[in-house]
């Protein structure tokens, strides 16, 4: 039982990170209808930025994550302007190629600045807390709490503010939205900025329990794609459900089947969803 509770918390913290990373990807897909293959690379840059602010600039941990999110939002907006905006009328394959190009560019850029070395980011949040008879590290508790807080804030932003509502409007109907005076350009930029900020928070949270290196985004990228397909492309609740489901499924499969099963589970779930309900669990009817 202790083992189960411990793995439950491991799965929950992993799920929190998956969620934050997946929401950005699903937002971009919802608004621009493109799978942003460079999302994992943005995650990696987010981790390096947090590392830079924390270690080299000496900023406190939470503030370092916030600064990284801010800078990465800028990079995300820049990417939308430079890479995707010029291709807005091109066929979809062009977006994918451009995104892959952006990914390689970010890999090389980071390797040129910080080198190929693995880096370790020490979190100031240390120690463990006893929850229901098991030891859970404060870092994991922080991940879960931060993820929940950010998710609530995001929901409020999308549902209650004008900017957020404009994102949802464009998601639902791009032409209709511009007819009522919403500037789709501005929404595209906003979406990219928001997606980048969210993925930076995910990276900043997970960096202390993992390592930072130029290809760290590749691992999460595959998982995150599985999550948004599982939850339904473009669906925010889908990304949340999908993220936590996958995090927990990985932890439980590792414990009760085998470690290899933990790595494979994402794809097994993905195949099942594609076979039984190809639109994903929580998607509305696909628009367009």
């Amino acid at each position: 039982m202790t083992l189960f509770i411990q793995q439950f918390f491991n799965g929950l913290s992993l799920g929190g990170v998956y969620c934050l990373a997946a929401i950005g990807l699903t937002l971009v897909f919802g608004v621009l209808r493109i799978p942003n293959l460079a999302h994992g690379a943005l995650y990696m840059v987010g981790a390096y930025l947090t590392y830079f602010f924390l270690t080299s600039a000496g900023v406190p941990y939470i503030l370092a994550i916030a600064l990284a999110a801010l800078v990465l939002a800028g990079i995300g907006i820049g990417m939308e302007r430079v890479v995707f905006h010029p291709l807005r009328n091109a066929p979809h394959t062009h977006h994918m190629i451009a995104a892959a190009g952006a990914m390689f560019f970010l890999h090389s850029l980071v390797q040129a600045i910080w080198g190929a070395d693995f880096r370790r980011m020490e979190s100031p949040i240390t120690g463990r807390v006893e929850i229901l008879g098991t030891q859970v590290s404060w870092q994991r508790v922080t991940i879960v709490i931060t993820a929940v807080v950010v998710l609530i804030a995001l929901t409020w932003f999308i549902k209650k503010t004008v900017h957020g509502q404009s994102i949802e409007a464009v998601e639902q109907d791009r032409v209709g939205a511009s007819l009522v005076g919403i500037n789709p350009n501005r929404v595209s930029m906003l979406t990219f900025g928001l997606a980048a900020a969210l993925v930076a928070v995910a990276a900043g949270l997970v960096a202390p329990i993992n390592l930072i290196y130029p290809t760290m985004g590749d691992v999460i990228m595959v998982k995150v794609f599985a999550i948004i397909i599982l939850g339904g492309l473009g669906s925010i609740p889908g990304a949340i459900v999908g993220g936590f489901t996958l995090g927990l499924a990985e932890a439980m499969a590792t414990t009760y089947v085998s470690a290899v099963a933990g790595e494979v589970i994402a794809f097994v779930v993905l195949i099942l969803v594609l076979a039984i309900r190809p639109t994903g669990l929580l998607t509305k009817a696909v628009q367009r």
Partner: protein
Amino acid sequence: MSQKSRSTLRPLIALSTVSLLALTSCGNGGGDGEGGTITIGVTGPQSGGGALYGENVEAGIRLAIDELNEQGVTIDGEEYTVEMRALDDEYQPNAAATNAQRLVEQDDASVVFVPHAGGIHAAQEINTSRSEFLIGAYSSDRQIVERDNELTFMIPPTFASYSEPFIELFQDQGAERLGLLATASEYGQQWTTMMTQDWEGAGGEVLSNNNFDYGAVSDFASAVASALSEEPDVILVGGPSQTTALVIEEARDQGYEGGFMIMDQAKFEEMELFTDPENLNNSAGPKPVAEFDDPGTDELVERFAEEITEERPLTAETSLNFQAVALVVKAMEVAGTHEDPTAIREALPEAATEVDDVFRVSGFPDVVTDEGLLISDTLEGAHRDSEGNYEYFPVEIE
């Protein structure tokens, strides 16, 4: 439309011309006027997940070449300059074979260093046929020399050599239950299979296999918790040093107090930088390079810090390749040719006794076997005891 596409094409053409020029000038340049040039080929990962590993290997080769050029290389009465030509293979076997072919045909390399098992295997399929070349194989899997490839020499000690002393060490302490938590690469699986057999053969019990791919998992906690739930006395871990250190730290954080057997890919000196060194107490692994007492150890440690980087320590990835380059160039001198790979290979055993002391850093080979194994009589493993002190034990290469 056509106007536009031409204007975007032009800079592209210019760029590719420039890079082509840069490439060709790389190939020919270097030799400063006098004598000929010996090219040492290297194909390894320069980008992607293995980039750091590739850098370490190249650093060893470069440091050796600089030293050799300073001392002067004379083959058959003529002076030569040695240079390195390194290509990126991103850890891909096929790319490694293609690169090797290019290095041999375009750059006239007669020796190519390949630092990964897959690439070595791919290169071994072409190195004795159309274009002959000698492979400097840096990977510790014994299969490399069991394929009857007469133009291969294997640089690191085989990992099987560590099995017996590791088991003896922990079973003497009373360990009975072995947990498995190594990386799930082919190399990790081979280590695991070997250790499972040997541990059971020595009367111990092997618990369930919790190996997972160190490079493809975002969170180690689940696999670690699962391994610890069976209450092992000692756990087999290993993969890249940095991730291995995190796996060990996670196990200690979850309350594990037993020992660790660390596969030879992970190095104590690197792990100490990534986790509180106390976590590493009560474990066995390869001996840190800086702890060797060989004649050239101190100088290479210093040169690595000065010329390569101070951010990470010198490891066997650099020092063993450093030694191997010195060995192979000495073999060229002994054989009197830098172009005939067969003659160079045959001269390796004699060359091993003649290499300058400055190149003897961490278990320099005393013997080169017919198979192509480099055997050092002074190789040792390291045991970090429960107080955090290192003691060393002999490891016999087999």
